[in-house]
């Protein structure tokens, strides 16, 4: 692939925002998208429709997948294969598998990651009659909403922990973790604590960070676990600034506890960083207490030459996850 061109992998909100920021800064950019549409998971979010429309004049190469094979990263499409050298991962979040979330039992049909439920919805296909959506966050609520609009009879949200958002009245919220699923062919039951939900579809709407391409920087949901489109746009702005920084010298960042800092490498000319923790709460940045509100905050560095971040002490024990249970912040 041509030298000097930044290749953004993924044309969702983060990829398109980053492309726009980089183009504005005079970079040459290509945006590659696996699907036949742009917008990624953000198409579920009407609050960013205007923004996506504005970004849609960015040229995007659709149905072009980036694949990692035999130690090389390749862009593959109907027209052929190219090697991708200078890429940025904007492929969105990874949805954890049932096994990873400690959901055991049978393996029936009807259990879908967030993306699949949305992709089928876009195609006009209904994933079930009675649906449980696992996770209480902006995206899970929006999806449950959409499902009801498209004729799903009942929608539950299963909240593994108290969320930072409220579910609207017509969606029933069940608190607890899913332990087992039952069904010989199609899903029949989901067990939440001692409660049995008789549903025929389960959507996993929890996000994890994920960068499948070694050596690529990452942006948006691929980089931080946030459930807010503004945070996604913010990461694009910060990364563009970081990339366009003349000096490659990086600040020292020291993090204690489960806190995510973006960007991963903070260059010297960057004035701000994004600090995220999915459960919200407070963190201490260079001695100053910062409220993470809905799960993240953009913190002004005020010219500091090193950054120290820690979780406020009383919250630390609650964050210690155990293997094969959900992490504390779900």
């Amino acid at each position, binding site marked *: 692939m041509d030298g000097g061109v930044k290749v953004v992998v993924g044309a969702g909100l983060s990829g398109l925002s980053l492309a726009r920021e980089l183009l504005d800064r005079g970079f040459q950019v290509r945006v590659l998208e696996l699907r036949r549409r742009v917008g990624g998971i953000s198409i579920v979010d009407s609050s960013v429709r205007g923004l996506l429309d504005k970004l849609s004049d960015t040229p995007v190469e659709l149905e072009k997948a980036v694949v990692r094979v035999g130690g090389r990263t390749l862009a593959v499409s109907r027209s052929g294969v190219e090697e991708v050298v200078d890429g940025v991962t904007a492929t969105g979040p990874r949805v954890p598998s049932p096994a990873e979330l400690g959901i055991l039992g049978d393996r029936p049909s009807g259990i879908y990651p967030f993306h699949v439920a949305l992709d089928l919805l876009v195609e006009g296909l209904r994933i079930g009659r009675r649906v449980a959506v696992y996770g209480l966050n902006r995206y899970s609520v929006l999806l449950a909403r959409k499902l009801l609009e498209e004729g799903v009879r009942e929608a539950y949200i299963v909240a593994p922990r108290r969320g930072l958002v409220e579910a609207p009245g017509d969606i029933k919220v069940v608190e607890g973790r899913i332990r087992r699923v039952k069904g010989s062919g199609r899903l029949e039951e989901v067990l939440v604590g001692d409660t049995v939900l008789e549903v025929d579809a389960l959507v996993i709407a929890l996000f994890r960070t994920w960068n*499948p391409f070694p050596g690529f920087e990452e942006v948006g949901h691929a980089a931080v676990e946030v459930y807010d489109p503004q945070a996604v746009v913010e990461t694009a702005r910060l990364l563009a600034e970081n990339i366009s920084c003349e000096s490659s010298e990086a600040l020292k960042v020291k993090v204690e506890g489960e806190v995510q800092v973006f960007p991963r490498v903070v260059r010297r000319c960057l004035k701000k960083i994004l600090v995220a923790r999915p459960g919200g709460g407070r963190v201490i940045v260079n001695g100053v207490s910062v409220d993470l509100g809905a799960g993240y905050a953009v913190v002004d560095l005020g010219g500091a030459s090193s950054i120290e971040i820690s979780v406020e002490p009383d919250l630390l024990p609650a964050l210690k996850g155990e293997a094969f249970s959900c992490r504390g912040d779900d």
Partner: protein
Amino acid sequence: MSNYDVVVVGAGVVGLLVAYELSKHGVAVAVVDESLEPGFGVSKGHAGVIHVIQPPFTSLKSVLAIYGNKLYDRLARELGVKLKRLKALIVASSIRQLALLPPVYVILKLLYETRGFKVNVIGGRRLREIEPNVRGYAAIAVDGYAIVDSFNLVYKLFEACKSMGVSFHLGTRVTSLKAVGELVNVETTRGDLRASYAVNAAGLNSDIVASQTGLRVTVSGRRGVMLVFDKLQVSNIVTTLSLLERRGTKGGGVIPTLWGNTIWGPSLASGSSKSDRGVYPEDVLALLEKFGKLVKVKGRLIKAYAGLRPTSGTGDFIIAYSPASSRIVNLIGIESPGLTAAPAIALMVLHMLRRAGLKLGSRRPVSLEGLSTRDKLVLGFNIGGDEGVIVCPCMGVSLADIAAAVRGGARTLDGVMFRTRLAMGSCQGQHCLGRAVIELSRLLGVEPKSLVKSGEGSWMVE
């Protein structure tokens, strides 16, 4: 009514291999299976290991496993199925086990070196060199194990059989199997078949089919659970010395796969059921307890699944003619190491049928379709068209691969996944399943709502 030389009941790896070997000799074969696709029974729930050690050492399964093991390289070459030879490392991870190591080593060396499998002891330092993730004082290394792409094996056998004219009756349950004089009458839920001979390779239901032929046996389903991690943790099969002591299972191990995953298991769950493929917390805890101390965990747990072992009352394979007629051969209790033994079982069945009067023609060569998109990308080929439309980026599966799977007989989503490895990578299908449903319904020419994941009732969309 159709007439065949041989009807095989069961399209698992054993039934397919029997059909494959027979059809190479020009025999007219029909295969009947209740599932919608081949390999959807016992054959879908194991770890794909070709074994060496199988106690008790004088059992039929032990003997057939050794013979079958040696047939695998040729079989894999013939069909173009990936097979990788490696060692099994039986690790002493405590002082007590270390004390047990010398006598076990002597026994294994005596038993297996004469049969062509090298057995060595390796010390702690060497163990750390070859398996940096494994904790242990020393290990017994047994050569001649292998991992095989077992899904691909099933599908290549299926395709080869079809290309040689084998007639498949899938989604069809056998309701009666009887030898009447020179013939065998096979009644099914979709009409009757007539043949000169029959082979019962019905796995979990082989006891039911056998009872129709007058052979009284029982088969129980014993569940084995496996955990899949998305990174390689070992480069050989690793297990602990203590596991050899347990009855009814070799105890499972930490097993590398051909596509960069690691499997822990299978376990041996208590109880018996022919249909419960569930995974329960105690299964997972037992595996974590067993292997958590043996290896350092690398990668994420991406899947937990269970398989069922069809165990006979004797605990050994039962390979026998029906009491009433030697025109029917029963294969009962073909559990682990059934995959290993399968090529040997097929040859044994061929021999038994010939003794019962079946005429075999001379062998015919087999030819099969080519490379997957992923293989081509690895080899650096330039591709385009439908091969360039990647549906599953994690595993590099293209539209052309899905179309090939459908041409090869895939009728369900699992059928496509097992054939192509679609949705089996790190993201477990989040980027591909939506598109796959659309494309599969298009290729099959059916409405998306009539697609199923594996069997009846497992609908995908409303």
